[in-house]
């Protein structure tokens, strides 16, 4: 499990805990003190990211853009955090 903690431009904390198997996401938890409306979309996002290749992350998150209002973080912050986690995983 790789953990990345980021501070967003809006001053919120974003934490991603990702388990990788090769270039696939075996499991992910997105947490922090941000806001999302409706809240349940973040859990759906985590489910959809499971078993996806890292290269598909951007597309998966883009599909959710119109379904959720994020406050304090952006979809791009989440993509960057996952990519940072993958870089840490590759270097480990």
């Amino acid at each position, binding site marked *: 499990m790789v953990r990345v*903690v*980021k*501070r967003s431009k*809006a*001053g*919120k*904390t974003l*934490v991603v805990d990702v388990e990788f198997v090769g270039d696939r996401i075996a499991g992910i*938890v*997105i*947490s*922090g*003190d*941000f*806001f*999302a*409306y*409706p*809240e349940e979309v*973040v859990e759906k996002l985590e489910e959809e990211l499971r078993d996806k290749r890292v290269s598909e992350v951007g597309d998966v998150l883009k599909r959710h853009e119109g379904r959720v*209002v994020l*406050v*304090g973080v952006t979809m791009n912050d989440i993509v960057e955090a996952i990519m940072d986690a993958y870089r840490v995983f590759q270097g480990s």
Partner: protein
Amino acid sequence: MGFDEALLVLRDRGEIPPTLRLYMWNPSSVTIGYFQRIRDVVNLEYAEEHGIPVVRRITGGGAVYHDAYGEVTYSIVLDVKGVLTDVQESYRLICSGLVKALELMGLKAEFVPVNDIVVSGKKISGSAQTRRRNTLLQHGTLLVSTDLNVMEKVLRVPRQKLESHGVVRIRDRVTTVSIEKNKHMSPEEVIPYLIEGFRKALGVRFVEEKPSLEEVELARRLEEKYRSREWNFKR
């Protein structure tokens, strides 16, 4: 927390009017944001040792220490229409009620987006919001005479968060009404200011009422969720 959710549900069904609730916690408690991992943000050993319950909110945002003798929590349910349609603007409008209340107490307060109110550059209040189809619930804390020693012990703040504020300890980042007024104030003393602040900000008239039977019954039904390990440890 069950009562706040009950207000949201019942207002969304049109069964109660828009409502402001002001309350204090007994015993002192911690609430955590919907998306937070409980072990990341709360010292659970300390909380258990000192009889401080921890409960997950239905709203995002950060962990809050609700001191039984030094904090007031507000919650408000309003219809999502007009300026309240926009999330950030709704925070600004509702938080202006707290800003006005603090001004009435003689303090110069400022709303800092997303959800903070600061006095003398330090956080004195934080708020969080969730929405249903037609209704929003916003609740938040006002630090009146909170014991910052306990707050520092029971809350775990990510190092990155403190660093981003250029501080090393929570107490360097937060303040209370009592500290700013340089005299002790109780939660009960600030309640009239809060009512007047929200009245001015929202341009409404409040009618004081006791909780209705349907509010109490729904809150009791929701209590089971908020007491469950499944809910509080879901992250």
